């Protein structure tokens, strides 16, 4: 308990908590404005953003020892999966939104 409180009160961690709280609120504010007709693209588009884990995987591979195959393979898998998520999500969303576009003509 004490340890948890100390953790929370460390200035750097406490600053992180502010960032977490306010970014979450921002997320809710921004996304609650999206109208129903765009909910499918929202779902796939925001899903694509969760491919951001790829950043972690890239940093992991870069730090790995060239002989540490465990880490390298895990990292490679991470980069691959993250990229499928990011690229696939982006392209499918674009494909959908292209349809919405056409009607403005």
């Amino acid at each position: 308990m004490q340890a948890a409180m100390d953790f929370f009160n460390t200035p750097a961690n406490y600053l992180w908590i502010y960032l977490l709280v306010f970014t979450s609120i921002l997320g809710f504010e921004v996304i609650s404005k999206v109208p129903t007709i765009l909910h499918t693209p929202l779902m796939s588009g925001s899903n694509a953003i969760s491919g951001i884990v790829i950043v972690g995987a890239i940093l992991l591979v870069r730090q790995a020892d060239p002989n540490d195959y465990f880490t390298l393979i895990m990292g490679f898998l991470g980069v691959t999966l993250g990229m499928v998520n990011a690229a696939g999500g982006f392209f499918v969303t674009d494909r959908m939104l292209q349809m919405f576009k056409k009607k403005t003509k």
Partner: protein
Amino acid sequence: MLLSIVNLAFLIGAVLFVRGLSMLSSPETARKGNIYAGAIGMGLAILGSIFAPAAKLGAAEVHNNYIWILAGMLVGGSIGYYASYKVKMTAMPQMVAIFNGLGGATAVLLAMVEFNNFYSADVPEGGMGALLSSALALIIGGVAFTGSMIAFLKLEEVIKDNFLVIPKFHTYLNLLLLAVMLGLAVWVVAMGDKGEMWMAIVFMVVALYYGISFVVPIGGADMPVVIALLNTFSGLSAASAGLIYDSKIMVVGGLLVGASGMILTLLMCRAMNRSLLNVLIGGFGGGGAAGKAGTGEQVVKEVSMNDAAIQLNYSKSVVFVPGYGLAVAQAQKVCKEIEDILEANGVEVRYAIHPVAGRMPGHMNVLLAEADVPYPKLLDLDDANSFLANADIAVIVGANDVVNPAALDDPSSPIYGMPILRVWDAKHVIVLKRSMNPGYAGIQNPLFFHDRTRMLFGDAKDTLTKLVSELKSL
């Protein structure tokens, strides 16, 4: 200098995520928004992490191993690109489910490597913070991963609703698993550097199993809600992994996904008039064959193709009510064709869009947009109900649960209380479906036995195509 550029790139990337999502709130800017967030923002993040100097990584040595990264990106990018162009619009929920799962799986990988590094280091770095964020990424990512896979298999109907379920006690089993998982998390974090790798492995196994056990008893009909919820999880797991790497852009991106998934989850629950808890532990749809009874006694009236065409042609206003069947039959373009013919004859045509018609939020909108239906013709629940009150004909194209009057007047029905489209307020109702089979909720629909209702059996696309030629020959 490089560090400043990289830091700035990350910051701009994170801002673009927010900006892109906020541009999604209007059809005019949505496509650009996706490009801002999904291409430029993500591109900056990837470039930033590839070129970040050693100082940013907080590592003494950096070996780069760029070949591994490039290989992963090429493989992943190609699969993603290929999948996105192959997938049918009807299969979007499955696609999102798989992507969720992949994001979750990546978070699990990262967490396990971090545990491994932590325990194998002489002087573990990061202390409680490192363990806490790894534990979070592991739990949330693990549940997102296996949960999404089960959701995918359920949607593909590879596994059935009663697969692996212990009928009465599954809820207790899940609560037990949850408690064990959280207990393990506290234990691992509290042990600090006295912990060992096997603890993390046990923890991972439990988290992965919990994901399966959590989704397995939920009825197939509720999968879209579950997928949106797992979307939240995959976002939060990315955010937790961001804490491991002290990466703000991962945290911001992850939280945005989390917020989006949560909003969609709550929205679907509200549209079905059920609480999230009810979806997660409640039976609905899980029972599977709750309906189907009572078909024998009542009589269903059919209408001929020709009669239907004449009725449509001489009406003043027609409302199409699309549902999941429209998606299955891919009938949206033919539907638009009929709209054009009718409008040319002076008939007023509208589409009544129920918020949970189809299999994901906004599903019908995407399909009709694909067929070039202008969105002012799409009426939402309230507008549609007031329009229906004065409409001549309602044509139900593969919808079922969303037009089930039992939701209004049969308290024993599992969908009782869900707001629905009051199609029987129109003077005539024509229902297009292939059989008397029930919809996703698995229950019979009294609407089909209503006096004003006429059935037109057959695949929606076939039927509509025939209607087009009938209409043209009138």
